[in-house]
């Protein structure tokens, strides 16, 4: 079974500080995704990766950057956190290549004060 860990699981930070969230998968899945989930908005794609050093923007990418230097790790960085980035962040991997089924991590709850 695919395994995903996200770290940290909870974080409280202040406006203007940089924040990096980490997603680690235990298998060599090519596609990885970062979503944010907010009440009233559902799951929205921030960035995704289709291989080492290959990334692309999603629908809400402003204020976020990503990096993927190894197949198993996908990092999401908030260069200067804002209160509007308070959210729950989920990492996912594509496990089904025909229909793009995704397997999600447990999430990181980020609060920006």
């Amino acid at each position, binding site marked *: 079974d695919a395994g995903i860990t996200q770290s940290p699981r909870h974080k409280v930070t202040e406006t203007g500080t940089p924040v990096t969230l980490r997603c680690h998968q235990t298998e060599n899945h090519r596609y990885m995704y970062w979503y944010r989930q907010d009440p009233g908005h559902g799951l929205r794609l921030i960035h995704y990766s289709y291989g080492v050093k290959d990334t692309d923007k999603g629908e809400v990418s402003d204020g976020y950057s990503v990096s993927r230097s190894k197949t198993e790790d996908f990092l999401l960085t908030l260069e200067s956190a804002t209160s509007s980035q308070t959210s729950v962040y989920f990492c996912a991997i594509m496990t089904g290549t025909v*229909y793009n089924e995704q397997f999600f991590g447990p999430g990181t709850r980020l609060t920006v004060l």
Partner: protein
Amino acid sequence: TQLLEQSPQFLSIQEGENLTVYCNSSSVFSSLQWYRQEPGEGPVLLVTVVTGGEVKKLKRLTFQFGDARKDSSLHITAAQPGDTGLYLCAAPNSGGSNYKLTFGKGTLLTVNP
């Protein structure tokens, strides 16, 4: 941008009742997925439907894909408190990049004992 509209947004029922939730769009989909998300966790894939008119059963859950592949429904028979959660439908993006999913905003189901 394709949209997936889910209804109802909230549903609170008593244990033992039946219910149906819906996922609708004006777009035609090659396939459609249903996920369930329990509080504090990431979404978990329940089923993928791929053929117009297809019906899939997962214990007390019945999933149907519309004949025109624009809509889907999830019917739960004799709901139990363990069915409580957020039910999300999702479909691969049409056009050039079907490696991304579009999610509906979900139906939040509460089953009271």
